[in-house]
């Protein structure tokens, strides 16, 4: 199948790639742009490991086609830190040991960041339900939720 040309912005950089119209955004990010932070946990929109934002909206990149990214603004986990300066969520995840194998972590962080952008003061209930789309088989979620709630409190104080 002939390849299509896609121009998009990823983590603030404009990028271009050629892709088969059937390829998912997830595969394009991983295989063409070498951004392997987003993972394939299921490929069917059920695990959240592939979470990215598109024009600020949280999506499963396994459910979106690469060609649909044309002209959009994509953000992945690789764009969260400013250079070596970690995002507050990243710092708290480390501080709280909110990760074990770490494979769900990029998706969880992207989703948590999207939550705090939308709602800087979530209740614990809201945080748990927001993150219910991100499976984690290792941690039991407790430290993840605590880290998110604590980051939210810190960020509110800072702003």
């Amino acid at each position: 199948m002939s390849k299509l040309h896609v121009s998009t912005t990823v983590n603030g950089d404009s990028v271009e790639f050629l892709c088969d119209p059937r390829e998912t955004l997830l595969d394009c990010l991983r295989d063409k742009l070498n951004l392997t932070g987003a993972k394939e946990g299921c490929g069917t929109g059920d695990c959240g490991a592939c979470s990215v934002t598109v024009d600020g909206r949280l999506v499963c990149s396994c459910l979106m086609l690469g060609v649909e990214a044309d002209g959009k603004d994509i953000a992945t986990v690789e764009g969260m830190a400013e250079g070596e300066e970690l995002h507050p969520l990243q710092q708290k995840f480390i501080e709280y040991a909110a990760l074990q194998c770490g494979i769900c972590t990029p998706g969880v962080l992207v989703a948590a960041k999207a939550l705090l952008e939308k709602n800087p003061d979530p209740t614990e209930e809201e945080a748990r339900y927001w993150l219910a789309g991100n499976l984690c088989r290792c941690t039991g979620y407790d430290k993840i939720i605590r880290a998110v709630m604590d980051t939210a409190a810190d960020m509110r104080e800072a702003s």
Partner: protein
Amino acid sequence: MKDNVSVQGTAHSDRIHDSAIKHVTGRADYTDDIALPTGALHAYLGVSDVAHATLKSIDLSAVRAAPGVVGVLTAEDVPGVNDISPTGLNDEPVFPTDKIQFHGQPLFAVIAETRDAARRAAERAQIDCDVLPHALDPIAAQEAGYPYVTKPLKLERGDIAPAFKTAPNRIKGRMSVGGQDHMYLEGHIAFAIPGEDDDVVVHCSTQHPSEAQHMVAHVLGVPSNAVVVNVRRMGGGFGGKESQMNLFCAVAAIAAKKWNRAVKIRPDRDQDMTATGKRHDFVIDYDVAFDEVGRIQALDGSFAARCGFSADLSGPVTDRALFHADNAYFYPNVRLTSHPMKTNTVSNTAFRGFGGPQGVIAAERIIEEIAYATGQDPLDVRKANFYGGEGRDLTPYHQTVEDNILDRLVSELEDSAEYRQRRQEIIAFNADSPVLKKGIALTPVKFGISFTATWYNQAGALVHIYNDGSIHLNHGGTEMGQGLNTKVAQIVAEAFQVDIDRIKITKTTTEKVPNTSATAASSGTDLNGMAALDAVRQIQARLVDFAVETWGVAPDEVVFRANEVHAGAQVFPFDAFIKQAYLARIQLSAAGFYKTPKIHWDRDKGQGRPFYYFSYGAACSEVMIDTLTGEYRVERTDLLHDVGRSLNPALDKGQVEGAFVQGMGWLTTEELWWDDTGRLRTHAPSTYKIPLASDRPRIFNVNLADWSENRELTIKRSKAVGEPPFMLGISVFEALSMAVASVAGYTTCPRLDAPATPERVLMAVTRLRDGG
């Protein structure tokens, strides 16, 4: 001055996971993230769509003709032995030749330019076969006269017959306990790169690199020294990657050698779930005799397991179910038998607890039966039956329980969780609440630590100090999130008294440490930590000799402290000291080794000391059910768990929480369901439900029993942590049971089967309301 004052990341500290920064920035590389060499090919499995059949022919011409396909692999392409049975029983072909034994069984592999092309092409095969009747569960298998996949076990002590005659009470019952899919977020994956001669390097995500190496050698028909297996980290394992990666490694390696190109294989989630093994489902029949106060006098237990088409690890898994059928309780007279049934399903395998949880839950069901029959709080029945007291410390396998701390552990949790008071409040609540009902349960766990295959209890490590003073650490264990590498590095940092940042932890590879055991049975730190310490001790002994000789000090004047080495009055920074040792031609590298002492096991007699020690824990959970829908939620959970002297409390607590939630999932929402044709219908997270962030207990208090210390000489007196807390999830199951029992005045044991899905809870409520 305390020794540790200025050293970062030594033992017993909350050191962060060594990969944490890479994890949060997305820079931690898993196998699928390793850049492929140009020309790499992709493999995909073609599978059966019947559960049991005689295989007549496989027509792959349409597969070969599909776009992008380079070739196919079938049984005929296996250059060595077509078998990947981990126990050497020769019952598990890479690809079958004459029989299909389960729905979804891999029959061939397609090799193509892209994964997508391989995946699409695999659908095009024409399989010609004669379908045979199948048996999916252990009872159907017994009825159909199916054989055992491996030798069963009997544990016996005392004499049950007289007790059954004289005991005032006797109850017989049956419990079905479902299996569980691992649902590691990273699925199976292997990636093989051909080398010169017979050589092949395989990057994969296995908990058992040595076995993968031996299997690849076996199927290729080459010696083990031609095969290297590498694992940097896994995105979860939980036992699912102990033996199951062998298939993927074998396929990738055969294809890589055949086409002389790198080959990667990564099944999609559905194929991962249908083609690889899971936790064993059990059907347990129990017959228990007990006295008026609920003390058990005799128990006869029979454990039939769905093993699948081949043995895989079913022998040791079903053995461990029997080893844990006592949980924390003394059985004066006991007989336990295992029935590892062959079934037409995927071959079941290791999963956190390794059969132990299925044994423990049977013990807890028996306690519940006795509690309802005698009208007592189940916690009182538990306490009445705990090991301890005159002549009450011998297990059914004749090992003496010497380190029991459950009395203290359980009373502490009982107090901190306010169990008694809350139970009264719940009973009062239930009396006034017609629809919503609550339940609470406090359950203990005792778990035996060591591989029951005694020879597995060995480990190796390799430590180098480079002449700039930096340390390279390697050991045979694999990192799957449990923080093993961090803990072993902490042990090395502590022993050398240097900051942990000086230590580089490197990927697990069969090139550095040979003949390793699986990172399993919770043994990773116990074994590899000791082996690393042995290596450190060897290097230190040489360094001490060097200092003694060079500065004329006594050996005990040579002290490693706070990133320095003291030789009498002389003090050197660690780097400078190492530099001098190097110039003096001191060997700065050592291979360490460890084997667990004291353990032995005679399986034919059913006697021995299979476990070096026991780990303990207790959990108290409160739930609320809706009796109109069966839906429920966990209101509060309190955990108190024993990890001896914790090497890293932050990591250990994480293991305890994660294990609890996973155990809760096993017993609540995670239902494996096969249809009549033998097809697994819960084959992806769309249909198979693991706990979500929203399922976490509303209140969740997790504590380590910080006063506990391993009485055995384990690494820094710590205890293993991976598996034991999994069984804390049983408290949720028992609490659900109490909530159900409330609808019939707590007089009938609800006999919930696991998993207690909302549907099952609703059915149990209906059954009890209708009078049992």
